[in-house]
């Protein structure tokens, strides 16, 4: 078979279709290893610990957090934006890279999409829990009621409700539609009766006929076409939570593109963090190759640089605007009491990814892993800087305060981390982490060697 000499193979080793099926479904068969148990144990404990924080928040109120009269949002919204950002990689990979016909996406899109769903779940948790009256949270939906009142469609927070809900549902559809053929594969390989029954149900009667495939491909393409602007819109709308306000440091037109690139940046970093562990733990080195890692690192440099430029642009515009409030807000970010957060943000987001200009580092797993963690931390601090430092010193100096997170807020963050990893660990046990059918379709063109039977 012909293999492009210019490109490095996306699938390594001697493979045929059957072998691919075999190797990708291998982690799902048999008993999970001790590391899996360790992982799920830790993440379940995190969920339990976090549940105490949830209880405290609902029972005693937001007063258990460190917020005050001036800083109305703290860790809660920081975490929300962070998780939404992470939730951008999956759909970006599967939708936009599909539209750009990037074949290397096939190895990572499934797990990235799953990660998206989990991250969006974690993200959606925060706007709910940060409500003062969670039990009345249903007020936020425009449902007919005897009070005759509706919601406020002017509010970016309401746009968020629509954006996040839509994003979650469309991503879920996209992910599930892509999963159907692979569930069919598992169903046909299943030997236990219950397992077979369940996967039959989930496969929805997939038979792999040419007509199914034709429609499936058409559906995937259009969904990708829809999801692509959706991905861009979601973080744009999240950024409008800040951009449409009047608070200096929030009221910035650059936010939508800046947030989207930041989101993809952090999303890819999170995917890398997970993938580097997963390929090792699940013996998927042949499918997720150094080449994949390198491709993703290239996107990280690109988006990281956009983010860096955005940071500088913000500073420039603040100075150039001549508005004293704006100027002070940015001066305060860099040199005020929260300078350390700004410094962490700058170091982790702007400086560390630049190391990826070196091919050696780009192709080094350990380095990539460390830098991806750095980026995750940096992006968390970016949101912290935006949310907290803009609020804590705004217009009237009489109301300036400091904000310190409480243990309860940390607990809620721990809860979402636990939830995320629990779901991910369950996911790798029940569904194939790599899109089997898609990998098969690129085996010939991008495989290292296809062996004949």
């Amino acid at each position, binding site marked *: 078979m012909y293999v492009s000499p210019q490109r490095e193979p996306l699938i390594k080793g001697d493979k*045929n*279709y059957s072998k691919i*099926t075999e190797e990708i479904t291998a982690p799902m068969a048999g008993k999970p290893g001790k590391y899996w148990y360790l992982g799920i144990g830790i993440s379940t404990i995190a969920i339990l610990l976090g549940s105490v924080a949830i209880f405290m928040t609902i029972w005693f109120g937001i007063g258990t957090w460190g917020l005050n009269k001036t800083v109305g949002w703290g860790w809660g919204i920081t975490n929300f934006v962070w998780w939404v950002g992470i939730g951008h990689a999956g759909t970006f990979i599967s939708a936009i890279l599909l539209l750009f016909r990037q074949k290397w996406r096939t190895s990572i899109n499934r797990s990235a999409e799953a990660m998206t769903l989990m991250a969006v779940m974690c993200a959606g948790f925060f706007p709910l829990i940060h409500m003062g009256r969670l039990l009345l949270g249903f007020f936020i939906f*425009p449902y007919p009621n005897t009070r*005759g009142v*509706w*919601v*406020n*469609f*002017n509010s*970016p927070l*309401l*746009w968020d409700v*629509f*954006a996040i*809900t*839509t994003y979650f*549902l*469309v991503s879920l*559809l*996209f992910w599930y*539609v892509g999963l*159907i*053929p692979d569930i*069919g*594969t598992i*169903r*046909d*390989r299943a030997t236990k009766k219950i397992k077979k029954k369940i996967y039959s*149900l989930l496969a*929805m*009667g*997939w*038979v*792999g*006929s*040419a*007509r*199914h*495939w*034709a*429609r*499936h491909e*058409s*559906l995937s393409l*259009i*969904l990708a076409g*829809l*999801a692509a*602007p*959706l991905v861009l*819109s979601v973080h744009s*709308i999240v950024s409008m939570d800040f951009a449409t306000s009047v608070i200096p440091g929030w009221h910035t037109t650059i936010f939508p593109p800046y947030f989207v690139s930041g989101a993809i940046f952090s999303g890819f970093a999170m995917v890398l963090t997970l993938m580097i562990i997963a390929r090792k733990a699940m013996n998927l080195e042949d499918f997720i190759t150094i080449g994949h890692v390198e491709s993703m690192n290239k996107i990280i440099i690109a988006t990281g640089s956009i983010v860096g430029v955005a940071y500088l642009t913000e500073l420039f515009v603040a100075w150039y605007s001549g508005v004293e409030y704006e100027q002070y807000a940015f001066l305060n970010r860099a040199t005020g009491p929260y300078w350390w957060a700004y410094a962490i943000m700058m170091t982790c987001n702007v400086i560390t990814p630049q190391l990826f200009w070196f091919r050696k580092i780009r192709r080094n797993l350990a380095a990539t892993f460390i830098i991806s963690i750095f980026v995750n931390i940096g992006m968390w601090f970016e949101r912290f800087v935006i949310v907290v430092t803009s609020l804590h010193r705004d217009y009237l100096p009489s109301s300036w305060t400091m904000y310190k997170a409480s243990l309860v807020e940390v607990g809620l963050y721990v809860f979402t981390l636990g939830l995320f990893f629990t779901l991910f660990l369950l996911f790798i046990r029940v569904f194939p982490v790599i899109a*089997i*059918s*898609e990998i*098969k*379709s690129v085996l010939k063109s991008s495989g290292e060697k296809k062996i*004949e*039977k």
Partner: protein
Amino acid sequence: MKKITKYISAFYEDEEDLLIGIKKLKENNVNVLDAFTPFPVHGLDKALGIRRSWLPRVGFIGGAIGALTGFFFQKWVFTEGYQMAIGGKPFFAIPSFIPVTFECTVLFAAFFMVFAFLFRSKLGLGAENKIYDLKITDDRFVVVAGFDENKSGEVKKQMEAAGATIIEVKE
């Protein structure tokens, strides 16, 4: 039309063999019914002569419905449902309605398409389509044709020629 009761199928190990096989059968006016593959094979729909899917059109209609619903619902809420003076804006403040309209468009389009796909392909929870062979979802490429007693020998030969490993006749 006569109802087909018996099928003849050929199992290939490579998608190119399958395509060649289908092409040959078609050339000989064999009633090729369907093909089953583990992954979408490029050119298969053309070889089988499957019409282009109208899912995009469903998507467009869904999107249009979503956009209109979203926009006019917002308009109704603010101008008739309950007039609320918000931030000095007029009741009918179009720029504020754009994000929700957009989200509704995408949401409706996606749901319309997915349900159309499931409906058209007869897929769904509890759907029981006949699984032709368990290996299809693994590495087998199968072409199924109507079985005609008169032509069976010829068809088999053509199938073998294209590289079929197994040839079956099923009721």
